[in-house]
């Protein structure tokens, strides 16, 4: 029997599993001694029960009608199709992978959908596979709760954060979709949880670095959140071991991150050159995407995106921003603000990046901000509650004062519920009842049954419907064609020397009609075709158009 010496000082003993341990910040006079509440999530029944109940609610709201709302997005189709290519063993995409995004995101989607796709290959379409995102949402929501507790929020506030994150109509809509951002959020939340690990274990911090790198390789925009992660890790590590923990995490993150350029290097595609794609070109393209204008400039693209977020929910984006600002302002005085410095910083950075006038603001950008918005909003609410109920309270305070405090608190809470409740109810009612994808399904069914010889038919289709066509027997890549590849991918245009004449059909979904403006071949195909079927009406309609003098006739 051998062992190391027992701890040197009484306060250095290992903390009791359940009891809060005092922070070992030396009372040097300047710094206040804060009690560090250690939450052992797995050993705490109230936490487990609360978390389970909220999780069930989130799963019901997000899962109900998940295939019907919101409308299928082109990007979802892209990622799922590439995940399908990975499953088929066709490499990272069925078209040439051109370093548009790091591939880790759809590799994960491929893994997530592997078993269902193996059992029922036809289920590999966007509507059905949204169910996989339900799993991602669930894990993220639980991680958010754990993180909230690790960032010292009281139980009810952690629950509030989870509700905001999982039930805000904006979150419900976006988290249902097969976006890389949702996966990246999961990894980033895991990184934050590990960074704020109550054990302050060196290898937890190291793992946080790995998780953060995974998040970035899942969706590269997560890069901007890394400073906030670093702040969190700094704050939640111990003075004596901090330098090892933080450098370890940074090293891990950098090394895993370097895996991506290393992959390009090994494939000989790091730097641009004739006849091949390159990582450099991919980055250059992403950095030079035309800006969508200043977000507050009505009429700019960014403003439109901003308005589309507010259309679904105002509470989380606006409330979260205000809360982050509040927390950053009271950093000096509020324990909660210091505990939540990392998430608040994340919100601030993401907000600043969104406000770049020259930047391109995609609709899913807000996804990576959602957990941090939820955390800071819940934190700010907790701060306000604390101020109302406890601030300046002395022992033996008259019952009247206490009564007033509670009245104010309950009035505020009731006001908030009265404001938020109806709006969220309406938003989530739409999300759980409206079927926005009937036209898509009908179009897919038509293409599967009405076309004579799918195997020899060439169709321009948007990414969201592409897999349905592939399942119906169209040749992936050159038979069923992602519509923009007809103009942008040399490997595809090469097979269409006659331009639109070499095609048979166009499935003109809203996306196709919108983007055709900049794509000559697609535009020509739309012009030289007649409508043979139409599903839905107005802007959202899906038309199936047959080319006048397609190959078959000509």
């Amino acid at each position, binding site marked *: *029997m*051998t*062992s*190391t*010496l*027992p*701890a*040197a*000082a009484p306060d*250095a*003993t*290992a*903390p009791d599993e359940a009891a809060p341990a005092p922070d*070992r910040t030396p009372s040097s006079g300047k710094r206040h001694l804060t009690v560090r509440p250690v939450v052992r999530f797995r050993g705490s029944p109230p936490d487990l029960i609360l978390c389970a109940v909220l999780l069930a609610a989130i799963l019901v709201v997000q899962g109900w009608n998940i295939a019907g709302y919101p409308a299928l997005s082109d990007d979802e189709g892209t990622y799922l199709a590439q995940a399908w290519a990975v499953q088929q063993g066709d490499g990272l995409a069925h078209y040439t992978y051109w370093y548009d995004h790091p591939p880790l995101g759809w590799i994960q989607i491929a893994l997530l959908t592997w078993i269902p796709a193996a059992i029922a290959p036809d289920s590999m379409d966007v509507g059905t596979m949204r169910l996989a995102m339900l799993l991602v949402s669930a894990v993220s929501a639980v991680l958010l709760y754990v993180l909230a507790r690790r960032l010292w929020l009281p139980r009810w506030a952690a629950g509030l954060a989870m509700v905001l994150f999982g039930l805000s109509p904006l979150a419900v809509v976006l988290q249902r979709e097969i976006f890389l951002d949702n996966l990246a959020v999961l990894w980033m939340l895991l990184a934050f949880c590990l960074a704020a690990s109550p*054990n*302050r*274990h*060196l*290898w937890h911090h190291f793992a946080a670095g790995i998780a953060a790198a995974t998040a970035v390789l899942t969706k590269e925009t997560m890069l901007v959140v890394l400073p906030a992660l670093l702040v969190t890790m700094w704050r939640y590590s*111990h003075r*004596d*071991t901090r*330098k*090892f*923990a933080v*450098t*370890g995490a940074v*090293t*891990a993150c950098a*090394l895993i991150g370097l*895996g991506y350029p*290393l*992959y390009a290097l*090994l*494939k000989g595609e790091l730097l641009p050159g004739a006849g091949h794609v390159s990582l450099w070109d991919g980055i250059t393209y992403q950095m030079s995407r035309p800006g969508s204008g200043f977000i507050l400039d009505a009429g700019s693209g960014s403003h439109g995106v901003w308005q589309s977020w507010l259309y679904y929910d105002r509470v989380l984006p606006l409330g979260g921003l205000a809360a982050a600002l509040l927390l950053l302002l009271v950093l000096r005085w509020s324990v909660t603000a210091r505990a939540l410095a990392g998430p608040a910083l994340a919100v601030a950075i993401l907000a600043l990046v969104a406000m770049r006038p020259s930047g391109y603001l995609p609709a899913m950008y807000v996804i990576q901000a959602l957990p941090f918005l939820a955390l800071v909003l819940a934190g700010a609410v907790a701060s306000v509650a604390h101020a109302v109920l406890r601030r300046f309270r002395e022992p033996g305070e008259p019952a009247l004062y206490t009564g007033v405090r509670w009245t104010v608190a309950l009035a505020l809470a009731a006001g908030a519920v009265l404001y938020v409740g109806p709006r969220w109810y309406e938003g989530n009612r739409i999300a759980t009842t409206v079927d926005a994808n009937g036209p898509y399904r009908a179009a897919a069914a038509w293409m599967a049954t009405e076309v004579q010889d799918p195997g020899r038919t060439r169709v321009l289709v948007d990414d969201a419907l592409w897999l349905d066509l592939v399942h119906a027997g169209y040749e992936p890549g050159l038979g069923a064609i992602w519509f923009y590849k007809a103009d942008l991918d040399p490997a595809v245009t090469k097979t269409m020397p006659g331009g639109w004449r070499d095609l048979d059909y166009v499935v003109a979904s809203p996306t196709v009609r919108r983007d055709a403006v900049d794509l000559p071949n697609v535009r020509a195909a739309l012009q030289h075709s007649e409508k043979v079927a139409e599903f839905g009406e107005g802007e959202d309609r899906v038309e199936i158009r047959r080319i006048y003098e397609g190959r078959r006739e000509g």
Partner: protein
Amino acid sequence: MIAAVSLTLFWMAAFTLWWQMHAWRTPETLAATRFQPPRGGTELTFSLLVPARHEQLVLDHTITRLLESSHADFEILVIVGHDDPGTAGVAARAAARDPRVRVITDTHEVKNKPKALNTALPHCRGDVVGVFDAEDQVHPELLTHVDHAFRSTGADVVQGGVQLINFHSSWYSLRNCLEYFFWFRSRLHLHAQKGFIPLGGNTVFVRTGVLREADGWDQNCLAEDCDLGVRLSSTGKRVVVAYDSDMVTREETPGTLLSLLRQRTRWNQGFLQVYRKQDWHQLPTTAQRLLARYTLMTPFLQAFTGVVIPLNVAIALLLDVPVGIAFITFLPLITAAVTFVFEVVGLHDFGRQYGLRVRLTHYLKLVVGGPFYQLLLAGAAIRAVWRELRGRGEWELTSHVGAHLTHDSREEART
């Protein structure tokens, strides 16, 4: 094939790194590696063995320092060879000055450290036997702390920290110092916790009864310290390790690269001997036996790694291998990079702990010197295997010039 080698190397390096960073795992672990502040006076008596061979330059200073100890009851047994009048003279003069010093003469024809220690063992009167080298600088409070550690933990063995200090001397001394830092500051504590520990050569304290029961040190082993630790822990003796930067025994690195190579060869050969003696087979659990096997093999695995990593990367970059395989060949490089970074941080921490100015050039030396040091280790490992196979088991002693002493006096002059 390459992938298998790479994966093996990766896991080996990962485990080594994991253990090397043991002390910094959590703040609680770090706190537990220190000595407890002594309470309740001193109760045990100590016999301190100081084997000295051709060390007349440093011996007197060492004895003087030892005599300054605050502990109430201890004796110093200086062991000198019958053929070494210089050192014997210094020892005799010290004995004449202070009754607590005694001189034991070792008359073995062929001399080595375990023989010297065994010669003195019957003369020990204390409850606890402690071992120091002739060039060691021992902290005056150390014995009191060790006394308390014995009493508060009921340990059979207490291993104190040993630290090379003269990192500024040369590029290899820098790495050598850091090796000690990671070993005594961190890794040994893990071994103590797991119940398998190769003890250090000095600042090691064993209850006299336990030591006699174990028949002292193995005279034929080149790493008698490691061997003793392995034998004691294999029979379930309780070993406690404590490290306090102000309480460590300060030492110096070997003066030349060649002597470092010799010293390392001797250790490696010693490890090999301990491995072949198979005392560690008696360890109760499989995990412990695995740890023992791995630890004793480490020098050789390390040498192997040093050679294979560059080879692997070259293969991945120059030959046409599938991307997946190429990725795997990079795995050992990742652990090597992480180890490098932790070494840099360790150097910073080392400087902080000992109040030494570590400059940018030192960090550069550390990084640039890494591969060359690997070469040295590989050389020593190969040399050790060669010598063991040829049956050459004599001691190649390292001589000491006292670089750490001069450095220390400079330190004192500055403050």
